[in-house]
């Protein structure tokens, strides 16, 4: 991920003014602790497509921007929720078990934030529970951000470091980005 605003944080050799300007946009985003706001996209989830095949002329959908994807604090909140709401009970720390791995490149139902949002809220037929009504949208978006960080889809300066727990995987901020691959939705008997 290299949006112009974030990369400013890493290029230190720019003029101070440039750094200030760029970092003012990005650092605030990354470090903000937003306690009372909802991500604007949360109220409705438009444009979730499971298939890239569209009849007729293809239309480009506006994808949802998950603001929490730029926010280190929200990502770490997502990590906390991931463990507290027992996501880790099935997906463990990304390697999977009852549920599929989340740290690899394979995405059955799409890797975009809105896809993951839909997966959490709606559930998926092969065992993924639906959390509709059980989690606030805000919490779901935080989870979405964290889930994406597990396979390195977020900027490394936003992804989390290790927890104060037994080390079982490399920390998210050191995880190389796994280019998302749409994997065939497997027959029910193959993969939950």
């Amino acid at each position: 991920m290299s949006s112009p605003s974030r990369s400013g944080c890493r290029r230190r050799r720019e003029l101070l003014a440039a750094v200030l300007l760029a970092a003012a946009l990005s650092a605030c985003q990354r470090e903000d602790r937003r306690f009372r706001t909802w991500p604007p996209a949360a109220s409705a989830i438009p444009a979730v497509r499971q298939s890239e095949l569209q009849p007729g002329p293809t239309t480009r959908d506006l994808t949802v921007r998950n603001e929490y994807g730029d926010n280190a604090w929200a990502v770490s909140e997502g990590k906390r929720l991931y463990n507290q709401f027992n996501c880790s009970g099935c997906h463990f720390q990304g390697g999977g078990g009852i549920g599929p791995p989340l740290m690899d490149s394979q995405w059955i139902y799409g890797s975009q934030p809105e896809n993951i949002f839909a997966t959490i809220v709606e559930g998926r037929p092969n065992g993924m529970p639906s959390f509709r009504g059980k989690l606030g949208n805000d919490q779901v978006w935080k989870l979405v951000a964290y889930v994406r960080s597990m396979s390195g889809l977020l900027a490394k300066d936003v992804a989390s470091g290790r927890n104060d727990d037994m080390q079982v995987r490399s920390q998210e901020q050191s995880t190389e980005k796994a280019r998302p691959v749409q994997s065939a939705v497997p027959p029910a008997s193959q993969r939950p």
Partner: protein
Amino acid sequence: MSAVLQAVLQFPGAHSALKPAGPQARIAEGLWNSMYATAIVVFLLVMAALLWAAFRRRRAEEPAPDPARERRMRRVVAAAVGITTIVLFTFLVSDISAGRAVTATPGKDAIQIIVTGHQWWWEVQYRDSVPQRWVTTANEIHVPVGRQVAVELRSTDVIHSFWPPNLTGKRDLIPGNENSLWFQADSAGVYRAECAEYCGHEHAKMALLVVAQSPDSFARWLTQQRDTAHTPADSLTSRGQEVFLSSACAMCHSIAGTPAGSRVGPDLTHLAGRATIAAGTLPNTRGNLAGWIVDPQRIKPGARMPPNQLDPADLRALLAYLETLR
């Protein structure tokens, strides 16, 4: 319980190291009194000496430093240093003996409590040899007057510090380390305890109440706490229970006797019996509870409780249900 609420609403003095209500706090206060008095005396003496030295009347022509006077001064300075040392040594001896008294191990019949610090609330568990009689509550400790209470201190996240100033000094809750303290309330009352180690956003709003009551009423309280929640009696409260179980509430809170068993947030089995909500932040009234459920981030920004947009009728039912959890 309204007596407790009353006490909470007027709690100045309910969290003061200067109003000891337990043996350790009394020892600390005694030390403070003696050290304070000594300090005042020494301060006045030294300042008097300084001001006298500075402003004393001098002859117009003071001689240059003369050896005899320097020798006298040396003796005076040496004497002052000697006195200082003696005072300090006295302090040291009294401190160490006080320290021994404070850290003596609690007796066998002490009440065993586990206090676990969370960002930013306290989980409280009463132990019993029969596991079934364990009691889990939050942000409130009830103790019988005149009996030792042994507290095991744990933390699951960052370092917190448990401090009921009227009863005893503080002790840190350190993840990965086992700590404990004991205290004893000598008189009935409601005492406030604070988190005394900076623990993040809401360190300021992480308090708990220590309710010291007669052994009888404590025993009654403990027995009551062992009950599971009753099945709602009327349609409003049963609707409220349904709201609780089918919404985000049950994702974090537990109510014994229902399928809600999560431990992310405080156990609510006896919520209505507690004097405060939000870890000693607000009196437990219906209005406060409603405000806390709907928009907790206004009251305690950064707290882990998410906002809940509930239908007003659902909220009313939920509140009615929560109020039955005595």
